[in-house]
């Protein structure tokens, strides 16, 4: 696509030159009299025309050839019980462009590294990868403010990262070591940090819990919203509808987001849901369908939601259309229920990182070299995190009896026999102490 870019620019350039030459042929300039002034006139015309041609892409010009911000069209939204869509344009600053690109690349590499670690048996049990869906967590977080919270299901590595967990802590949690987010006690599905309530293993359970966090936001009047994510598989869970009902009744500032990647484990959406219009499934709760492969569209949608929810209008149900490249989890090759061609097609035409890269290079927000530099840095960071995750040790066995309770009553915890009880200890700094 870069080649196309160059082709377009060359064509533009030759058009401008031709225009100037044509003008010169039409007696605007005398060929010999005042040759120097003619040349400078030609140059001025050339410059002016070029500027006019490039103007739509620039609001100001930086040295080095990149701009400080650019405006993009968002992907069309579909609305349910709403009159106004989110913004049809999105202004992306150069800093944001670099940030979003970096974040998505980190998540992509992190998930890829996790896949390898799982195959090496350094990660055990469950490992659900987010590759392909990066634009959602990056786009959502880009719009959130410090008082907002997120809760999601088990495909949570990308979320843990954007919500503030370091790459090292995520990878070490996957390998179950001391530097893990939860010191290795949680595993892939149970990563938490301030305002990020996991990481939940039971399909659908995180949705009413997320509505509850929104209730706390409203009760405490802290202006926050809670974003509760779930998949197309969870979208049929009864407790979701119980949550929608109460959120609507109580006008909770909750945004329920269905990350529709087309498959609930091995079951395609058509085989699981009588209605696959997940953004309408809230019925009396208004909804928006969003192209989840476009990070800026996601960001604008969440900005809209924050506005909506914080003005007391109640909850929203979003459906973000996305795709996962890996199987449901590392135990699933992901090819028994869909073709390799389908996966390849998405990779080649709809990959969120590729699409964003094209946007930001095309708009001269960044250069290809800068992005290459980021790629290398990301690779290095993730590789180092993998090294730590593999070599760090597990917590001491005695620590299995730590932090069962915040306020323990008994000092001992029974072991496998009555002869060697463990001592309960308190170790952590509680993130949501109240």
């Amino acid at each position, binding site marked *: 696509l870069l080649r196309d870019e160059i082709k377009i620019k060359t064509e533009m350039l030759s058009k401008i030159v031709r225009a100037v030459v044509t003008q010169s042929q039409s007696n605007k300039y005398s060929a010999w009299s005042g040759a120097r002034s003619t040349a400078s006139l030609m140059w001025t015309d050339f410059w002016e025309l070029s500027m006019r041609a490039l103007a739509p892409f620039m609001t100001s010009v930086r040295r080095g050839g990149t701009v400080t911000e650019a405006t993009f069209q968002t992907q069309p939204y579909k609305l349910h019980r709403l009159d106004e869509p989110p913004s049809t344009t999105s202004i992306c600053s150069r800093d944001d462009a670099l940030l979003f690109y970096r974040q998505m690349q980190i998540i992509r590499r992190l998930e890829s590294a996790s896949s390898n670690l799982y195959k090496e048996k350094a990660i055990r049990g469950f490992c659900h990868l987010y590759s392909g869906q990066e634009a959602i967590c990056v786009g959502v977080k880009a719009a959130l403010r410090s008082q907002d919270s997120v809760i999601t299901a088990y495909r949570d590595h990308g979320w843990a990262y954007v919500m503030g967990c370091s790459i090292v802590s995520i990878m070490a949690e996957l390998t179950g070591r001391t530097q893990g987010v939860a010191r290795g006690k949680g595993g892939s599905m149970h990563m938490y940090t301030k305002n990020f309530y996991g990481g939940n293993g*039971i399909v659908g359970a995180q949705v009413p819990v997320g509505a509850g966090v929104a209730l706390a936001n409203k009760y405490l009047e802290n202006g926050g919203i809670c974003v509760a994510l779930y998949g197309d598989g969870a979208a049929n869970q009864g407790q979701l509808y119980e949550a929608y009902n109460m959120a609507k009744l109580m006008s909770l500032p909750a945004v329920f987001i269905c990350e529709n990647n087309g498959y609930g484990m091995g079951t395609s959406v058509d085989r699981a849901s009588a209605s696959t219009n997940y953004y309408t499934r809230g019925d009396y709760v208004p909804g928006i369908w969003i192209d989840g492969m476009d990070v800026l569209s996601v960001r604008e949608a969440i900005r809209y939601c924050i506005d909506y929810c914080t003005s007391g209008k109640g909850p929203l149900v979003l459906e973000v259309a996305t795709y996962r490249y890996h199987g449901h989890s590392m135990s699933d090759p992901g090819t028994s229920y869909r073709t390799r061609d389908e996966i390849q097609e998405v990779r080649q035409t709809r990959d969120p990182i590729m699409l964003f890269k094209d946007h930001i290079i095309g708009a001269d927000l960044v250069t290809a070299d800068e992005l290459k530099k980021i790629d290398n840095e990301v690779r290095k960071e993730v590789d180092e995190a993998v090294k730590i995750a593999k070599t760090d040790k597990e917590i001491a066995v005695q620590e299995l009896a730590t932090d069962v309770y915040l306020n323990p009553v008994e000092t001992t915890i029974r072991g496998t026999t009555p002869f060697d009880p463990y001592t309960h200890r308190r170790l952590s700094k509680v993130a949501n102490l109240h």
Partner: protein
Amino acid sequence: MNHVRRVFYRERLSGVLSQSFSTSRAATASQLTVRDALNSALDEEMERDETVFLMGEEVAQYDGAYKISRGLWKKYGDKRVIDTPITESGFAGIAVGAAMGGLRPVCEFMTFNFSMQAIDHVVNSASKTFYMSAGLIHVPIVFRGPNGAAAGVGAQHSQCFASWYSQCPGLKVVSPYSSEDAKGLLKAAIRDPDPVVVLENELLYGTSFDVSDEVLSKDFVLPLGKAVVEREGQHITLVAHSRAVMLALEAATALAGEGVECEVINLRSLRPLDEETIVKSVIKTHNLVTVEQGWPQCGIGSEICARVVESPAYHYLESPVIRVTGVDVPMPYAKSLEIACIPQPHDVIKAVKKVLKIK
């Protein structure tokens, strides 16, 4: 006299009992029903801490299905006393999220039978989170409501969940008997930063108990994990929780008339279970009978027996430990069958006599 005693869920009898078995330490000042004890616990804690709120079916405008929350909605309003739709799974999850997000919810189940619809939230969302997050996220929530057999409500409304919940690490579980228990344990539960399950008993709600001034004070709190010896004795230990304590005390009174002195322990807490008090008592009396209304298999009595056998008290036992429990069937409706399915004083007396090898 006996047929009056059989009608044990009538307030007449509880009045008789409360005069005989005062559980407070200081000179008794007043009578308080369990209902009023719970109501004042809720009121006091809501007044003390603005983040405490109550949610459940009919708790607000109906004043509570069993009137436990009478007057609270009128006093505190919609924000702090919330009527929920009949959606246990949803509202229990919401309550857990509210607890994570900075509040201290009291989530009422109309009875714990309905908690089965929400048990995933009690166990997976609430009780395990502090551990799974290595102590990052705590869930200061109280799940409360009536537990176990009521009167004539049939099989689906009579199950005792003491075993199910007390098995789970990460939870604290209490099972109050008297008004003092009810008030002190509910207040302690609300103040506790961990998830607590409070298993009340519908038939005790209307029962009056003598309470001291201390119990009536706004800061009366009982420690979790501590049992109390309701009645001292030297021949045999009876251990019970909730309504079965009344049963054990009745049996103890009858047996006292025959010269058998029973030591009656009211567990108060099921998790943690006060093993120390039980072991100390058994070392003294050398005999143990557990009394509960729930089913026998994997019941509270099973746990107590196992713990005593594994403890130094085993060597002091003069007889095997016997459990008196509900009958191992779903609860029937017909009155005489229902009575037969719940342990009665004569069952406890029979067990004691067998253990002590007396006629």
